[in-house]
């Protein structure tokens, strides 16, 4: 009868700790509704792979390799960056670049809000090899697929913690951003109203926009072209107007299937012996640092611009220049209304938020360009 309990005796405290972490992620997904489509599969997967000789991942049993389905999925879809890129088609099809196209100058806030990524890279390089430092810094983009692609392309040995941190911080936008914004702005600044003049954008502009972005990104930082290209391909499906069924499929079926597989596959990298290290805590800390400095970079840049502008901008919109779309844009709008119930910042903050989507992908591409080809 020993077969009933012999595996139980092999259970380690580290594996039990991973069950607790998995449980916390499931709790956050269900009770707090934090990115449930990702945190729930990741949390469940963390429990699944942390059993002694778990059949879900590759194991050597008596010297013989037993292939696990999650390792196979990882090899098929994450090791070659396929899943995150396919997910980008769905994200692109969901994105409405309208607010940005009506006011393209908002693009500069997206660039400013990537400050945290590059600053954190400098900090992380004091502790980690350069490829790992660049991958860890990309967590600050609050863009899971980009973080995965960068970590994978740069052969980071910390893919698991990076993925978990990137997706967790995406979910924590409503908790992390408001205090940073309040700390850096005065009430008077938060009350600045911004006029919005509704303009129409021609269909041709909407169609040409994704093509132009792909060409520009491809010419300036070729390493980013797959990231930008897949995002823009999804957007072109939506805007062309003749492929509505494909656009709908990309937005719902494709995005849902990839998200489902991605979440549980990420968990294959959460085996206790790899995950429970001091390095993981450090990565989580640096990811948070990057995220905070991205927010601060956007706000401070807007304040800097206000020194020269006659018509002031509300500095809070700078914080929306991260990739977490549309969460960040909505939070800025909500914060504006809390200060002044007639202050409608939504269209401006959404414009900055979609520019953050593009900017974070380009920032990831620049990181890859720097360290794949040795600089540009």
């Amino acid at each position: 009868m020993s077969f009933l309990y012999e595996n139980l005796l092999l259970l380690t405290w580290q594996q039990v700790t991973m069950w607790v972490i998995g449980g916390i992620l499931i709790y956050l997904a269900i009770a707090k509704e934090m990115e449930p489509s990702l945190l729930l599969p990741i949390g469940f997967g963390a429990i699944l792979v942390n059993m002694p000789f778990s059949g879900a991942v590759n194991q050597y049993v008596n010297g013989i390799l037993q292939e696990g389905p999650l390792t196979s999925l990882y090899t098929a879809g994450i090791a070659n960056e396929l899943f995150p890129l396919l997910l980008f088609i769905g994200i692109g099809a969901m994105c409405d670049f309208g607010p940005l196209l009506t006011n393209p100058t908002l693009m500069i806030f997206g660039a400013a809000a990537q400050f945290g990524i590059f600053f954190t890279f400098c900090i992380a390089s004091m502790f980690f090899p350069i490829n790992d430092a660049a991958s860890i810094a990309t967590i600050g983009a609050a863009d899971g697929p980009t973080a995965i692609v960068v970590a994978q392309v740069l052969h980071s040995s910390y893919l698991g913690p990076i993925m978990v941190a990137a997706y967790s911080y995406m979910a924590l936008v409503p908790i992390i951003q408001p205090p940073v914004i309040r700390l850096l702005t005065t009430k008077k600044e938060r009350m600045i109203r911004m006029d919005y003049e509704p303009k129409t954008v021609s269909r041709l502009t909407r169609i040409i926009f994704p093509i132009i972005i792909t060409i520009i990104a491809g010419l300036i930082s070729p390493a980013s072209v797959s990231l930008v290209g897949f995002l823009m391909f999804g957007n072109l499906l939506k805007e062309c107007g003749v492929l509505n069924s494909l656009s709908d499929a990309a937005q719902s079926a494709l995005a849902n299937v990839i998200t489902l597989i991605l979440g549980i596959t990420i968990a294959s990298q959460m085996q206790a012996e790899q995950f429970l290290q001091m390095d993981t805590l450090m990565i989580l800390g640096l990811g948070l640092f990057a995220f905070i400095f991205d927010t601060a970079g956007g706000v401070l840049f807007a304040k800097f611009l206000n020194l020269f502008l006659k018509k002031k901008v509300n500095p809070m919109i700078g914080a929306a220049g991260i990739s977490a779309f549309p969460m960040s844009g909505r939070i800025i709008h909500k914060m504006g209304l809390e200060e002044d119930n007639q202050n409608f910042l939504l269209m401006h903050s959404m414009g900055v938020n979609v520019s953050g989507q593009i900017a974070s992908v380009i920032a990831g591409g620049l990181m890859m360009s720097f360290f794949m080809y040795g600089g540009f």
Partner: protein
Amino acid sequence: MTFSPENFILNLPYLLKGELGLFCELGIIALSVIVLNRLFKGEE
């Protein structure tokens, strides 16, 4: 994990290159959009 504080200074140029690269790239995209909006103004 080793602590090498000199790497912070050594890698600061990447902060400048990265932000400069981003501002240039997004600046070009913004200019392209302004041109597109001018060219196709009033078209459906």
